[in-house]
């Protein structure tokens, strides 16, 4: 009886070990599925043009790595220009977004005014509006204002995000009221209180929405595509699409991959640095796009 049970316990433990090994195997397999495209793009980007095109059967490694594709990517198409445009667009959009969002969140969280709840409700309901619905009129508006192929036209409609206002407002509300009253008694103005107390306390959330917005800007494709047809104003997404369709002459895939690596690296670096904040921010309600 004793031995039997002991045996059963051991068998159960062995089964558990096997199961655990299978779990790890599965996780590693999926990790490879996720990482493989990244590996492939880096690998292809360092294969020589000739070497790549002579591989009828794709090789999983290269013996003669080269950086010539990166030179090609930045010289034969204005990839640097696309980068610069994207940075201007990202910085501009994110900066204006921050000002607008912080002010609005502060008003909702801290100030008293008539109709506040009603306005907030309206704001919340705006979260449901899909961007696809409004992009049409915005396109017409920007076109009629002659703002196509300008940064103004790129940036302005991309600024607001109701969700970030909501997120920051929630965070602002967690700052104890006493701090505000203490500051008021000391004669601090609202603006000063906001800069000296609220923003420092809520810095993690502000950093989070900043990063999320940067990711969003860096990846935006649809609006820039609609609003720019002059390559001088292309962002990286549009640039990469242009490269795909007409860049580098015929089928220079290694150079194309070098461009892909170049535009992927900034975000991955950002992710590695702010991993925790990004993942927390996204799990609080960000969706892609």
């Amino acid at each position, binding site marked *: 009886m004793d031995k039997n049970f002991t045996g059963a316990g051991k068998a159960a433990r062995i089964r558990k070990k096997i199961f655990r090994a299978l*779990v*790890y195997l599965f*996780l590693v397999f999926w*990790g490879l599925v*996720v*990482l493989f*495209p990244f590996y*492939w*793009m880096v690998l*292809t980007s360092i294969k020589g043009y000739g070497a790549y*095109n002579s591989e*009828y*059967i*794709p090789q999983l490694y290269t013996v003669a790595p080269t950086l010539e594709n990166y030179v090609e990517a930045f010289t034969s198409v204005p990839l640097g220009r696309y980068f610069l445009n994207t940075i201007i667009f990202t910085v501009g959009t994110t900066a204006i977004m921050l000002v607008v*969002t912080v*002010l*609005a969140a502060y*008003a*909702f969280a801290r100030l*008293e*005014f*008539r109709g506040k709840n009603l*306005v907030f409700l309206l704001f919340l309901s*705006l979260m449901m*509006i*899909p961007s*696809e*619905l*409004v*992009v*049409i*009129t915005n*396109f*017409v508006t920007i076109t009629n204002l002659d703002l196509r192929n300008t940064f103004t036209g790129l940036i*302005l409609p991309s600024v*607001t995000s109701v969700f970030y206002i909501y997120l920051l407002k929630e965070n602002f509300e967690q700052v104890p009221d006493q701090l505000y009253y203490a500051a008021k008694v000391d004669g601090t103005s*609202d603006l000063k209180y906001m800069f000296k107390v609220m923003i420092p306390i809520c810095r993690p959330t502000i950093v989070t929405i900043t990063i999320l917005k940067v990711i969003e800007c860096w*990846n935006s*494709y*649809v609006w820039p595509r*609609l609003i720019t047809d002059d390559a001088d104003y292309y962002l*990286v*997404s549009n640039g990469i*699409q242009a490269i*795909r369709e007409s860049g580098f002459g015929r089928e220079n895939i290694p150079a*194309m*991959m070098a*461009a*892909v690596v170049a*535009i*992927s690296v900034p*975000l*991955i670096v950002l*992710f590695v640095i702010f991993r925790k904040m*990004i*993942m927390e921010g*996204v*799990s609080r309600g960000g969706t*892609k*796009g």
Partner: protein
Amino acid sequence: MGKRSAKGWLYLLPAILFLGFFLVYPLVDVFVYSFEESYNFASQTYAGVGTFNYSYILRDPYFLQAIKNTFILVIITVPVSTGLALVISLALNSIERLRRLFQTVYFLPYVTNTLAVGLVFMILFQRTPYTDGFVNLMLSWFGAGPVDFIDGPYAAKMFVLCLYTVWIVLPFKILILTSALASVSKDYYNAARIDNTPPFRVFRKITLPMISPSIVYLVITGFIGAFKAYSDAVALFGTNLNAAGMNTIVGYVYDMLYGSSGGYPSYASAAAIVLFVIVLTITVINLLVSRKHVHYNS
């Protein structure tokens, strides 16, 4: 009161201006556009008011193709990605060593440029005169013939599109589900263990009900997101999606607006509203179904 009220509105003013101009006004306007017939972009005039735009797009084979593609994409990718995310999250939740590393790796696709990585998928799957591509190489190991996934048969193209979509949306779902699973108290599992509960029963009777709100959230956002698919298709098949037969509803909207086939904001508006109605209907159905079956802990 008056002065304090004014201050509140002043702080809100920038947000209201931006939202009003670029969100509320366009929302109203898009409905107007969709009913204005023969709208002329250049002169900004229209011939009449009616439902012609709707009947036009609903007869347009490109639109019907886009609807078909979108529905197939939705029906395949939403269950597959949610189910796969659940399996991966359960696996992640059952280990301790290396968990953070796996989580970080799995999240990577979220922070990549959809257009850029789409190109990588394209070259992995594409068959050209110079090479059959890596995926066909793998297929040949199993004796399966080379297939052109990018310019070939419809099913192959749809397969790649679905695969890429799943690859792109998984990080978000895994993230949400792992945090939902991690928030289920260990005590429940210990209690179940002591009561000798079979693993599958634990999953069905404890885990699943406890994380059901997150699953519903993912299914709803998954439906919405999949219905709006566009840039992944562009990444794989290029901007001329109609020619590739792989257009989506959103793609149709943009094509109507802009580019060689563009200049028809009325048609675009009508298509966008059709999309909106579809999404709204599905979301409402989802909410109604979930209300019956979901445990909300509060």
